[in-house]
């Protein structure tokens, strides 16, 4: 039998469609399957795009089709095992809801196909008129941070300061506090640690497969894992101990630990003396904040707080409080202080730059493409106010504040918005408010699929190659968990592009050419690969065949010093318990207890908290059919409620309830949001809150698998800004829950 290649199969299939059901014999799948059974399978290394972990993996391709993906055995993030999300997002290559060609919104509000050249021409003309009238500073580029590097070059050329990442809707207070206090984001050394405390961090939900493997091994070896979380999360299930905490009060818990360490003389005095700035200032402000005081706030007994502090101290420096991620570092009015207190607890243990404690990421030395210096216009101030005196002076200007973009558009500061791999209509608070993004003069979305921001707000959609269709410059594999050796990986095209899409570099080249900026990106991605690899000495072809390469340059413990003095990169070279930039702008430099902004009071009121499901990656996977099937079998869109609270409200497992919140903006009439949800009644949740998985609530009609599935925490929250770090405080939300649908 003649072998049928993918191409000929498609031709045959198209022919079949043309003649209808008249020729069913041509659709013999068995014959087709048999005909390709012995076709070669190629194994191509690349890395996953399912979350920011970026796991190195292999993609298997047969007959031009992706067959399967598997983890890279060398990769320090997964040791060869991928999570469900990785498998799910790989299948999205063939998801029918991808945007298959450039689209333009017509006068009737509906999208029509447009050629790339025509799209570039029209966008260039509109952009030129906007810049001519309002300066380049009226253009914003919003992106999922860490996923690209071309947008910043574009803004530099236009004279815009407005590069905005998703951090302010994710974990901005952590990066802000750690950069200012430590000048680094250190990682946990699970494999050598004897006592590990996790609060607001679920390595089994926001999965890092290697972390779960290491933690499971640690438990088997008798090393201790303690999880503090309002919910018995996936990580808590494998821990020695789950300690429920009143949500919004982790700061009190951390301060109670710090107080115990200091008042009981358990802290590492020589470390503090040598490597800490501002200890006295911290202690002066917190001398009265005992474990007893903390206990009354966070609902963990003082005895337990003291026990944890003593255990940490006993095992230090091979002990840590996990630095956390999305869980606590964006959601509360006190999130910045939570991050500060986290640094302080760890520094009191003297575990910084220590094995078994916190270690810096091992990173390969990478280069970048060298381009001739260009004469570029001066930028204006950041429109979002990040780092701007008298606006949000202490918010990181390199990351910005994403959630109040509609306000910046309404005030005329921003006229044109580019969205790259970013969907604020679903991932930022209050989608009804975020929809006003569409009021900008020009909105260009560069997505994969028909996400909400593209569907409701974009004027032009320029679809990007899927991650399995494109090449990207190498990057380090690092972050979150410590690994002794630097690793490097690069993204390789696995299959030929299925649709009329382009890689981002070509999109930017096309657009800038239409803007008569032909030479802004005078390189290919292959040039970039060469430039990035140059300092590492790694051969390109080797990386492209092996996928993930580990360099034999172990990272060693020891606090960074220069000329015998601490030199960790902060202003004083030490870990700074008091943040100078905060003091300069009228804020306390050290953390002290700050109560949550709101608290549930009535019998039907709950704090709404959220978290990641192990098989979903926030909104990115909410239209992935395979993962949505898992959602169905696990009742994954249900809202969790504590059993005792549910009984009082006469709510039974599986009941449909109305979840209601009030969304208020200064000077505007409050809006009531109501959603019907099903309830999971559980003993595994702190009574004062309800828990919602973060992935769901897809509302783009063109996302046909996920549309209408579940609700999202952002549905219930107003768009607000925590002024120290720019976070959006989405867990400072009280919902009312009552039996019965809306």
């Amino acid at each position, binding site marked *: 039998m003649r072998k049928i290649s993918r191409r000929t199969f498609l031709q045959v299939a198209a022919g079949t469609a043309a003649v209808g059901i008249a020729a069913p014999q041509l659709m013999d799948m068995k014959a087709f399957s048999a005909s390709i059974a012995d076709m070669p399978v190629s194994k191509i290394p690349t890395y996953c795009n399912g979350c920011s972990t970026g796991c190195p993996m292999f993609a298997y391709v047969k007959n031009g089709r992706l067959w399967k993906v598997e983890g890279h055995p060398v990769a320090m993030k997964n040791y060869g095992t991928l999570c469900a999300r990785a498998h799910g997002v790989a299948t999205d290559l063939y998801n029918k809801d991808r945007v298959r060609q450039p689209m333009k919104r017509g006068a009737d509000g509906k999208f029509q196909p447009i050629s790339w050249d025509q799209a570039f021409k029209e966008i260039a003309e509109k952009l030129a008129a906007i810049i001519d009238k309002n300066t380049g500073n009226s253009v914003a580029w919003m992106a999922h941070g860490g996923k690209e590097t071309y947008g910043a070059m574009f803004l530099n050329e236009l004279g815009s300061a407005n590069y905005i990442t998703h951090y302010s809707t994710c974990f901005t207070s952590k990066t802000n506090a750690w950069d200012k206090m430590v000048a680094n984001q250190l990682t946990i050394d699970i494999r050598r640690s004897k006592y590990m405390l996790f609060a607001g961090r679920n390595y089994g939900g926001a999965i890092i497969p290697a972390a779960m493997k290491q933690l499971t091994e640690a438990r088997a070896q008798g090393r201790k894992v303690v999880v503090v979380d309002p919910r018995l999360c996936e990580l808590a299930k494998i821990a020695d101990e789950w300690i429920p905490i009143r949500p919004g009060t982790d700061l009190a818990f951390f301060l109670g630990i710090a107080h115990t360490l200091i008042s009981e003389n358990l802290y590492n005095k020589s470390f503090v003396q040598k490597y800490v700035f501002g200890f006295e200032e911290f202690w002066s402000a917190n001398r009265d904040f005992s474990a007893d005081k903390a206990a009354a706030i966070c609902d963990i007994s003082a005895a337990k707080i003291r026990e944890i502090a003593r255990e940490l101290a006993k095992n230090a420096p091979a002990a840590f409080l996990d630095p956390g991620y999305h869980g606590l570092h964006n959601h509360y009015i006190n999130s910045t202080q939570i991050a500060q207190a986290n640094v302080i607890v760890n520094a009191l243990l003297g575990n910084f730059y220590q094995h078994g404690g916190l270690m810096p990421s091992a990173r390969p030395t990478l280069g970048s493409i060298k381009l001739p210096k260009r004469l570029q216009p001066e930028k204006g101030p950041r429109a979002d106010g990040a780092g701007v005196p008298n606006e949000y002076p202490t918010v990181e200007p390199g990351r910005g504040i994403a959630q109040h973009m509609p306000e910046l558009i309404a005030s005329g500061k921003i006229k044109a918005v580019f969205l790259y791999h970013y969907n604020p209509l679903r991932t930022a608070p209050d989608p009804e408010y975020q929809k006003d993004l569409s009021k900008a003069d020009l909105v260009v979305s560069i997505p994969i699929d028909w996400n909400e921001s593209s569907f409701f707000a974009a004027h032009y959609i320029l679809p990007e190659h899927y991650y399995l269709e494109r090449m990207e410059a190498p990057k380090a594999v690092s972050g979150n968990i410590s690994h002794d050796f630097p690793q490097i990986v690069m993204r390789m095209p696995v299959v030929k592009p299925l649709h009329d899409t382009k890689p981002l570099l070509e999109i930017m080249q096309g657009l800038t050419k239409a803007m008569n900026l032909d030479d802004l990106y005078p390189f290919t991605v292959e040039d970039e690969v060469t430039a990035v690899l140059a300092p590492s000495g790694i051969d390109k072809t080797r990386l492209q065949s092996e996928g993930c390469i580990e360099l034999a340059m172990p990272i060693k413990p020891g606090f960074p010093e220069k000329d015998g003095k601490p030199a960790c990169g902060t202003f004083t070279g030490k870990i700074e318990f008091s943040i100078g930039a905060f003091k300069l702008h009228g804020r306390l430099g050290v953390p002290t207890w700050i109560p949550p902004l709101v608290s549930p009071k009535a019998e039907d009121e709950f704090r709404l908290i959220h978290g990641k499901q192990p098989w979903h990656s926030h909104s990115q996977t909410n239209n992935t059919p395979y993962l949505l099937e898992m959602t169905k079998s696990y009742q994954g869109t249900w809202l969790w409620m504590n059993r005792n609270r549910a009984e009082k409200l006469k709510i039974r497992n599986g009941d449909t309830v109305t979840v209601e919140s009030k969304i208020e903006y*200064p000077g505007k009439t409050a809006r009531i949001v109501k959603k019907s949800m099903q309830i999971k009644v559980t003993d595994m949740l702190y009574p004062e809150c309800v828990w919602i998985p973060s992935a769901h609530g897809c509302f783009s009609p063109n996302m046909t698998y996920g549309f209408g599935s579940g609700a999202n925490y952002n549905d219930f929250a107003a768009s607000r800004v925590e002024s120290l770090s720019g976070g959006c405080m989405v867990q400072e939300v009280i919902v009312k829950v009552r039996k019965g649908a809306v």
Partner: protein
Amino acid sequence: MRYAKLLLIASISLVMLAGCGQQKAPTAQAPAAAMPAGPAINEPFGALQQVSDKYLKANKTLLIEPQEVFQKVVVAVDPTYYLVDIRADEHYANNHIPGAVHISYADAWRPVKTEFLPRDKKIIVVDYSGHSSSQIAALWSLLGYDAVAMKHGMAGWSKNRDVIGGSPLPCESKNFATVKEVPATTPHETPTLDVKATSEADLIRKRAEAIATKPVVIQADDLLARVTAKSAFVLDIRATAHYQAGHIASAINIPLNNLLEPDSLKKLPINQQIVIVCYDGHASSQASRLLNQLGYNTVALRDGMSVWTGDSNIIGAKAVACDVPERVTAKLNAPLSPGPSTAAT
């Protein structure tokens, strides 16, 4: 009737202010344009005059001695105090009282700057010499905070010019002439405030914004020249007995406590700068803040009568004591300007 209406407005506003005071640290900052629209203040001058007069009549303590700050805040680490240094960025960065945070004098009216001020602590305002800090203590007190100024500012903390960032305390008086003649006063109109405010706090902030960069003090030498040239309007706010014992030529007397009563205000010109004189510059700075916000054009005589004359019958107290001990200071652990806005990942 009009007066009664004003009183009503003022009392409503005070209730709002008190309500504000019970809130937790506000956070969701909305830009000024999106502030909640409350009932508009129809008579801004009257409303502001009444709340300012009420503040003065409450006889709130304005000052705290540097020694007390040292003992309570630095030595005993009493957490019920909150230090705010309002000097220029670089002076704060070089040397400040340990634990002090920084808000520039000219920015003290901004909600973005005051939102983190605690309402359950005593706020101690620190400047160079006590003059601008007295103004800000008055401003923040009007806004419902418990604020005091540290006497003589950093000049009361240290003799070292580098630490102060300005002049040390004057050790000697000028021994300029004083008189006992009481000049006649002439009646004046009161100012009209062209300001649209939605609440009393909004009114106070808007007026504070309007005067944020006005000069704070006049030096004794400069005042002497203007007095000699008969070009100064001098307002002495000391107790009448001390005024009667001797005052600057041409100065009229309205004791501080009565200063903002409607009849007193009618004695003040609205189209001429008024130099306000007290014992040591603190009360006059406070008065200057309140009058400037009401639409007058005022400055305080730096260090008051204690520098003008050494006569204790006139100044009613000892001359300025310049034997200031050296006390501990801290340096800021941050650069003064944020780094460039480069895209971080």
